[in-house]
């Protein structure tokens, strides 16, 4: 392979980053910072999952909050009603989100709804589900439903009262690593190549023997499953489930992370999430009292700047610098 050395270099970098991320909580006792880090990882993982449908397949999907909410409510209902552990609820939540994605995906892609229409449909999906869960009293309803914690078995209810973020932090870190790995694998497989190509021209891909409809549904299913699983962590993080989880703003944020990071680039969304989510929390903490929602303005400005000056994403910018530094040190660059 052309860039095997680069690949292993990247793997080492990934390993080091994960190691650092794994050790950080040992030294970090500040609960606020732990909450922030967990939040960054949640968004990074969501944006990485979005990368499959948004970055590779080129469908500007705004439905991530729908799958997050479905995952959260599935896990929450199982836990509240039948006291089923979130560890199982997590998987079932993902499966429910995936099943819903199949239900949506077949008519959507069957009728060849792409581009702007796909974006609008996916966005509407979030709002529809929000209203459904607002009115569905036996599962949702307008008040928060708190997730019970059994103090005797904190591991079973996935929450340690003294240090609520620690376990969630490690779970979401593991999920993020898995998502990146999945991204990698898809990118290097037939599905990845098909998705990248069909994102550019669907007719042209079909005459090359690719069942584009099936490829898109596969991508949607993988993405929805991951988003559903992350949704359960998102709910555990807050400690309750509420219809506000079906939040169109969240969908937009995740899509922005994906675009700013670089469409179709595996590490792009992670890099973008580290920058933008920290920025968001910073703006919220220091200016939130006076100017709530300012972070969306900042996001918008950054998005415009990126689209204008670095349309392939900020990660490409870093890669270019990286290449320059490498070539300066006289390491032979291939390709």
């Amino acid at each position, binding site marked *: 392979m052309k860039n095997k050395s680069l690949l292993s270099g990247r793997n080492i970098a990934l390993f080091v980053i994960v190691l650092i991320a794994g050790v950080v909580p040992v030294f970090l006792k500040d609960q606020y910072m732990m909450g922030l880090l967990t939040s960054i990882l949640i968004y990074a993982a969501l944006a990485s999952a979005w990368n499959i449908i948004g970055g590779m397949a080129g469908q500007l999907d705004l439905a991530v909050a729908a799958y997050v909410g479905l995952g959260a409510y599935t896990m929450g209902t199982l836990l509240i009603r039948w006291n089923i552990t979130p560890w199982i609820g997590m998987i079932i939540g993902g499966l429910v989100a995936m099943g819903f994605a199949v239900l949506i995906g077949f008519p959507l892609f069957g009728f060849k709804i792409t581009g702007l229409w796909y974006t609008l449909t996916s966005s509407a999906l979030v709002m529809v589900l929000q209203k459904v869960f607002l009115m569905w009293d036996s599962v949702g309803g307008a008040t928060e439903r708190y997730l019970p914690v059994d103090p005797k078995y904190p591991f079973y209810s996935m929450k340690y009262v003294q240090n609520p973020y620690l376990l969630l932090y490690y779970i979401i870190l593991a999920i993020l690593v898995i998502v990146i790995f999945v991204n990698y694998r898809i990118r290097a497989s037939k599905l990845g*190549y*098909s998705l990248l*190509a069909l994102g550019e*021209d669907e*007719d042209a891909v079909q*005459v*090359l*023997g690719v069942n584009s409809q099936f490829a898109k549904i596969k991508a949607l299913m993988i993405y929805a499953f991951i988003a559903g699983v992350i949704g359960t962590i998102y709910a555990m993080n807050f400690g309750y489930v509420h219809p506000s989880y079906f939040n169109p703003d969240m969908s937009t944020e995740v899509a922005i992370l994906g675009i700013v990071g670089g469409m179709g680039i595996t590490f792009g969304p992670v890099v973008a999430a580290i920058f933008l989510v920290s920025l968001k929390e910073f703006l919220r903490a220091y200016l939130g009292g006076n100017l709530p929602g300012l972070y969306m303005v900042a996001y918008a400005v950054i998005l415009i700047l990126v689209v204008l000056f670095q349309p392939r994403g900020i990660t490409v910018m870093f890669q270019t610098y990286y290449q320059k530094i490498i070539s300066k040190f006289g390491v032979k660059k291939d390709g």
Partner: protein
Amino acid sequence: MDNQPMLQVSNVTVQFGSLLAVNDVSLEIHRGEILGLIGPNGAGKTTTFNALTGLVMPSSGKVLFKNVDITNMLPYKRCQLGMSRTFQVIRAFNNMVVEDAVRVGAYNRHGESTVKNKVNEVVEFCELGPLRHRLCGDLGLAALRRVELARALATEPELLLLDETGAGLNPAELTAFMNLLKKINLDGNITLCVVEHVMQMVMGVCSRIVVLDSGEVIAKGSPAEISIDPKVIEAYLGKRVPKCY
């Protein structure tokens, strides 16, 4: 050449609303030949082409490929059967590098273990070696035509349909492209059907020609026969009128 044609088109009609784009067209493509499909602007060449490759469904008529009825088959299934095409307007994967674009096609008949060899083989064959790591979006027209051809070849078709591949090429590029087509036909043992405007190319490579005008077949035959057929001359240049001064 066996007696059974590779592609048998019988009485295909394509109608868009009240417009009869293709009217009762019948033609056949035999194994091993290079068939040229020509005609003046608006004659229905591209629509016929789209009907053969599944991007447009015929209103009536039948298309048989290797004795399989493919009239209403989706394009990707036709490709799996052994038929691929290129487009008149370049449909490049602008953000993919050349070898990745070829790889999309190569997956049609190859798994992960052999797909790389196939890509290398096709890239060599189409003389795209120096360009293989370039982004398709950065390439010029002549190179993109080659990439599109390579992409289609990577699917290992038995029948390859090329839509106006000569358009916009300069004479040197055209000659190189014609040689490539002949190489594909002879060395690759692939049957070709070319829709073409550029007469130099049609006369240079085709072994048989079908002429369309106003959605109908007006003549069939060898290049030499076609070039003196009065109906064809009329379709291209108009009727000879008596001098009226």
